[in-house]
């Protein structure tokens, strides 16, 4: 327990977390500090490329694990199943209508890649190894949740949902983040340690610093969301934003143990389960469920769950994974 606290405290005073806090504070104080959209997008391209590449190199180094296929499958199942649990919790804990609840649920089945990046960065600082292919699992978990949510809507109000047309399906599967992450993973895999040596002073050394600036931007955006959409967060909704990641992490823990992952791998599958999407899923929801309220799902995912995972969640998941795997 003590160790957990010190872990959390250590985590909290890292430049990465404090940059996020700075962003939130600046936003709440209505400072005009902002990161241009193009720069923020550039930073995220860098992060996706680097994390994907490093994952691929690690797979190249350790050989293809027989568990890779299994892990992908488990990831898809988690992503598809978590929205059903989220939906259930929402119906019990809040008064949200079906449509909003389904839209929120989709976010919690999918993942937040920055939370994943922050967690792997913390694992690296602590010298805890993890399976390189977890990056591929992250990619696999992005989309299935959306299908589950649309199914929830279709099963319910009937005509409400336009359902999933082919174009939307393709858009989701080929959205930029997935393609870049998976593509960089394959490049890393193909070029291996040698490829990494060529570009490591670009994708390895400055990585954490770039992550700081990116989290500064995330903080600005999350703070603004809270400032404008905070009113929407009734106690029940707010509680869901913290309970759901804990429930999902527990399920992720089970999945990780089932797969026999390393301590780091178990942590990361917990993090993926616990994190909620705030880019790919919102865009899909605007197309497929335009009547659902975007403030609701964005404020919840980005303003509540993301900060929770970043500050308290990750150290907690690390501690639990260590305790359980004895790592």
């Amino acid at each position, binding site marked *: 327990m003590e160790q957990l606290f010190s872990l959390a405290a250590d985590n909290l005073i890292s430049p990465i977390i404090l940059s996020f806090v700075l962003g939130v504070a600046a936003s709440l104080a209505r400072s005009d500090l902002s990161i241009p959209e193009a720069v*923020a997008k550039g930073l995220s391209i860098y992060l996706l490329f680097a994390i994907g590449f490093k994952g691929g190199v690690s797979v190249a180094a350790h050989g293809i694990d027989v568990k890779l296929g299994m892990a992908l499958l488990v990831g898809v199942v988690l992503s598809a199943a978590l929205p059903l649990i989220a939906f259930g919790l929402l119906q019990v804990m809040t008064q949200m209508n079906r449509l909003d609840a389904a839209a929120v649920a989709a976010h919690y089945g999918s993942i937040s890649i920055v939370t994943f990046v922050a967690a792997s960065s913390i694992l690296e600082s602590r010298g805890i190894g993890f399976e390189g292919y977890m990056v591929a699992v992250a990619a696999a978990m992005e989309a299935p949740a959306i299908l589950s949510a649309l199914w929830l809507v279709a099963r319910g109000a009937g005509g409400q949902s336009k359902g999933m047309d082919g*174009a939307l399906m393709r858009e989701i599967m080929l959205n930029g983040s997935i393609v870049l992450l998976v593509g960089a993973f394959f490049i890393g895999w193909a070029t291996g340690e040698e490829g990494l040596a060529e570009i490591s002073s670009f994708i390895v050394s400055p990585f954490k610093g770039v992550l700081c600036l990116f989290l500064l931007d995330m903080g600005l955006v999350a703070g603004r969301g809270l400032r404008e959409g905070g009113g929407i967060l009734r106690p029940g909704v707010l509680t869901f934003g913290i309970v759901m990641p804990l429930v999902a992490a527990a399920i992720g823990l089970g999945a990780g143990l089932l797969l026999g992952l390393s301590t780091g791998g178990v942590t990361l599958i917990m993090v993926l389960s616990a994190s909620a999407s705030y*880019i790919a899923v919102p865009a899909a929801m*605007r197309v497929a469920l*335009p009547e659902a309220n975007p403030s609701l799902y964005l404020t919840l995912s980005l303003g509540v769950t993301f900060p929770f995972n970043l500050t308290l969640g990750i150290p907690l998941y690390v501690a639990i994974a260590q305790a359980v795997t004895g790592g």
Partner: protein
Amino acid sequence: MQTHRAKRVEITIEAVMQSRLTDALNKAGVTGYTVLPVLGGSGRSGAWNRSGQISRAAGMVQVVCIIKPERLDDLLDGAFSVVERHIGIVTVTDCDVLRAERF
């Protein structure tokens, strides 16, 4: 200088819907349009702006079509099928154009 009567239709719509809108316009036989970026705005669903909006998914764009007056209804029907369930604004203005053969 010789000008010709035309209609200028401006459709402000979420960026995620842009390709669906232009597909619908193409189907309605409208193949000429220009897309302008939108920095921010405000409406019944609140205010937003690009740097610092709660999600970068929520940006909007403005699609401008200049067309012959007689083709207006086709265009509006096509646009409406997309805009209908989504937030978005459609305005029509009278204008004059040079080089009418282009439209």
